């Protein structure tokens, strides 16, 4: 099986080739006679599905290897080498990236299939699948990259695709602005990433700039440099994974088509930051200060966006804030050195969040692009399959046992407690209650009660099979994925954590089962409270309330967007116009203007001497002669 490693390069390549082929086809036909949607759909799914099977092959090959040799590297070519810096276009599959690979390709394939139904009839059908394939390819590069630079390629690639897909319906300025925002905010994070990479390189990169060599050389880092690197990289993660203060783009990103929200803004791309922190676990574990900062940023983000989520009225925005909130959990997890728990939450979150988004998409599709939850209601009879699957997703998201979200979230909270971060644990439990509240608020408002918009209700219908089948598959995952990492308490043996062991640098603290049970009970109680309140308020149908006081602040997201706009965006535009209106013409130009002014002024002054009378010119000559004589007669005797 030596040659298995050589397939690795194909995994990201297949979707990329698909993207190029579809892109070319679309580009040359979109203004004329287009190819059929079936052809596009088939072509689009070939790449991801093949990649998924290849990933399976690689994954099982990896499983067959002894634990301490579980890494396959495929060096495709030397990307660039300058001085000590040598960057290979190389791909690494180890337990961490193997697991990621598997669910990225799996969920990616599902969403491709789902999108065939969702996007049917769109005039840019081909373009959509080109972007989607491109995205998947980039994501796979991100996951498979053997070093930070290759990861950065995928990192930026997914950022680009995110931009393209958010602004997919580009005739609407709002959508494009959302795309711009996503790209620019991501770029702010990327700046941190690039600087972090650079610092890391100058510190220990000359011994090889891939994860394995870096891991071996981590001990050479001084604490200051190490923490700097960790924090700089974390800025990158903040941008990509929508953490404070760079989370603002993600809710706006819901402007894209719903499958995009599911694929990119829930399941895959946004978790890249978590993946990156886990990838660099050898550093974050080494420099715990940085880890703690990560954890606190994460849990605060979770709290903040949960507050936002409680007051939103757009179904996708609610899910978006829940995504941000769950990402906060993941960061709290990886921050408190519970890397496997964080990654496991990524894994389960991918299922239930994709499920919720696709379910929401199905609702939106049924109601002809109506996204306001206050216009919905009572849909459970009309869309039973969607309702059931979404309910499973909601339970998983809320962390209700025994659904997958319960195990992963609880593991994170428990690890926080076990590692001595009681504050994080407390906030985490609070957020769990809030999560349960807003999730079920959504469910109750959409599916229960009476229809608020009768006309839309009458036209509603269940989505076609191409859309519901992925929902069912995902629902199964959302319900059952938790089993994979069943803690010892329930007789499990933490399959995922054990599997990830070789890739991560973590140690499992030992705490008595008693504490574990208590912690678990606390979060279950919180969830139940959350659901109960939601039922009380919305279970029987409710009308849109007027928000006042704190709720109003929450509804307006604490005016953070407006503040950012006033503090960053407008000043920059202002400076820009000051430069081009004032500084450019008046200040920097002043050198050349001054020079020409002197010449012109001198010219006009000397012009007065040019009276036009020949005798006056003769007089000048004589004056010159006279002065010369005065000067020269000094030198004679």
């Amino acid at each position, binding site marked *: 099986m030596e040659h298995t490693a050589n397939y690795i390069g194909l995994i990201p390549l297949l979707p990329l080739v698909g993207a190029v082929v579809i892109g070319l086809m679309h580009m040359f036909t979109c203004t004329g006679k287009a190819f059929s949607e079936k052809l596009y759909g088939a072509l689009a799914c070939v790449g991801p599905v093949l990649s998924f099977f290849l990933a399976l092959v690689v994954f099982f090959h990896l499983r067959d290897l002894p634990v301490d040799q579980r890494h396959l590297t495929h060096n495709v070519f030397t990307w660039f080498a300058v001085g000590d810096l040598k960057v290979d276009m190389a791909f690494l599959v180890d337990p961490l990236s193997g697991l990621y690979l598997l669910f990225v390709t799996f969920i990616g394939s599902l969403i491709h299939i789902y999108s065939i139904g969702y996007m049917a009839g769109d005039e840019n059908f081909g373009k959509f699948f080109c972007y989607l394939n491109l995205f998947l390819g980039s994501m796979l590069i991100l996951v498979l990259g053997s070093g930070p630079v290759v990861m950065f390629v995928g990192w930026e690639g997914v950022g680009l695709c995110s931009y393209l897909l958010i602004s997919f319906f580009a005739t609407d300025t709002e959508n494009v602005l959302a795309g711009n925002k996503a790209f620019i905010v991501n770029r702010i994070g990327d700046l941190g990433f690039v600087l972090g990479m650079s610092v890391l390189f100058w510190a220990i990169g000359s011994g090889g700039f891939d994860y394995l060599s870096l891991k071996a050389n981590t001990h050479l880092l001084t604490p200051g440099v190490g923490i700097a690197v960790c924090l700089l990289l974390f800025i990158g993660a903040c941008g990509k994974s929508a953490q404070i203060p760079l989370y603002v783009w993600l809710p706006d990103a819901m402007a894209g088509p719903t499958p995009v929200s599911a694929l990119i803004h829930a399941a895959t791309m946004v978790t890249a930051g978590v993946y990156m922190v886990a990838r660099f676990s050898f550093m974050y574990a080494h420099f715990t200060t940085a880890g703690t900062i990560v954890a606190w940023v994460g849990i605060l983000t979770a709290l903040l966006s949960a507050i936002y989520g409680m007051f939103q009225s757009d179904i996708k925005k609610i899910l978006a804030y829940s995504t941000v909130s769950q990402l906060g959990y993941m960061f709290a997890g990886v921050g408190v050195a519970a890397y496997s728990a964080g990654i496991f939450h990524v894994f389960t979150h991918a299922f239930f969040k994709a499920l919720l988004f696709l379910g929401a998409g199905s609702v939106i599709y049924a109601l002809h692009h109506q996204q306001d939850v206050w216009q919905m209601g009572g849909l459970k009879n009309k869309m039973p399959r969607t309702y059931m699957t979404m309910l499973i997703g909601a339970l998983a998201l809320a962390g209700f046992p025994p659904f997958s979200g319960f195990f992963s979230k609880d593991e994170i909270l428990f690890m926080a407690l076990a590692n001595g971060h009681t504050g994080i644990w407390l906030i985490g439990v609070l957020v769990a209650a809030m999560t349960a509240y807003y999730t079920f608020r959504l469910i109750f408002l959409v599916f229960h009660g009476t229809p608020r918009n009768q006309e839309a209700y009458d036209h509603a219908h269940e989505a076609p099979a191409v859309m519901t089948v992925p929902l069912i598959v995902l629902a199964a995952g959302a319900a059952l994925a938790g089993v994979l990492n069943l803690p010892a308490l329930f007789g499990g043996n933490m399959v995922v954590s054990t599997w990830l062991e070789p890739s991560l640098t973590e140690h499992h603290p030992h705490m008595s089962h008693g504490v574990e049970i208590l912690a678990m009970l606390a979060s279950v109680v919180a969830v139940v409270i959350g659901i109960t309140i939601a039922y009380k308020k919305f279970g029987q149908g409710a009308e849109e309330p007027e928000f006042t006081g704190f709720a109003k602040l929450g509804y307006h997201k604490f005016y953070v967007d407006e503040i950012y706009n006033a503090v960053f965006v407008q000043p920059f535009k202002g400076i820009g116009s000051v430069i081009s209106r004032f500084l450019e013409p008046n200040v920097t130009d002043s050198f050349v203007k001054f020079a020409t002014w002197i010449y012109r002024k001198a010219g006009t002054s000397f012009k007065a001497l040019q009276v036009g009378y020949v005798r006056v010119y003769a*007089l000048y000559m*004589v004056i010159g002669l*006279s002065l010369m*004589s*005065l000067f*020269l*007669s000094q030198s*004679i*005797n």
Partner: protein
Amino acid sequence: MFSEGLFYAFSVLAVLGALGLVLFRHPMRGAMSLVVTMISLAGLYSLLSAKLIFVLQLIVYAGAIMSLIIFIIMFLNIQDNDLPVEEKRFAYTAGGIVVLIPVVYFLIKIAGTIPGVEATIVGSGFGGIKEVGLVLFQDWLLPFEIVSLLLLVTLVGAVVLAGKRRVGK
């Protein structure tokens, strides 16, 4: 010492004539005083044993050129009110003199450095037609030809300028 007396006499006359040229308002008077200068200069040439130039000065300058100028002045029949108004003429002259004093001073200083040869005796042929002619047609042949060409061009030019009035109509 007779020659020195003559030199001073001619010098004073020449300077007076030049002053007259500069100061008289009417060009006719200026022309007449210039004639005085020309003739005094001719005398000075003779003192310098330049026989040919003495003759030429009298014939060409004082004779031909000055008659031409006077002829033209009379031809134009200049009245007093034709003349430009030069109110501050003397102030200008004073200013001009101030400007020129350094020049004069410098040039005189230079002239003082030239070794003054006190009245060497020159051969009787010096400055005669034959000697000048020999030099002219041997060493200076090309410039001579050029000057003749210049005269030709001038002739043509004068005809063209003067002939304009016919063309104009």
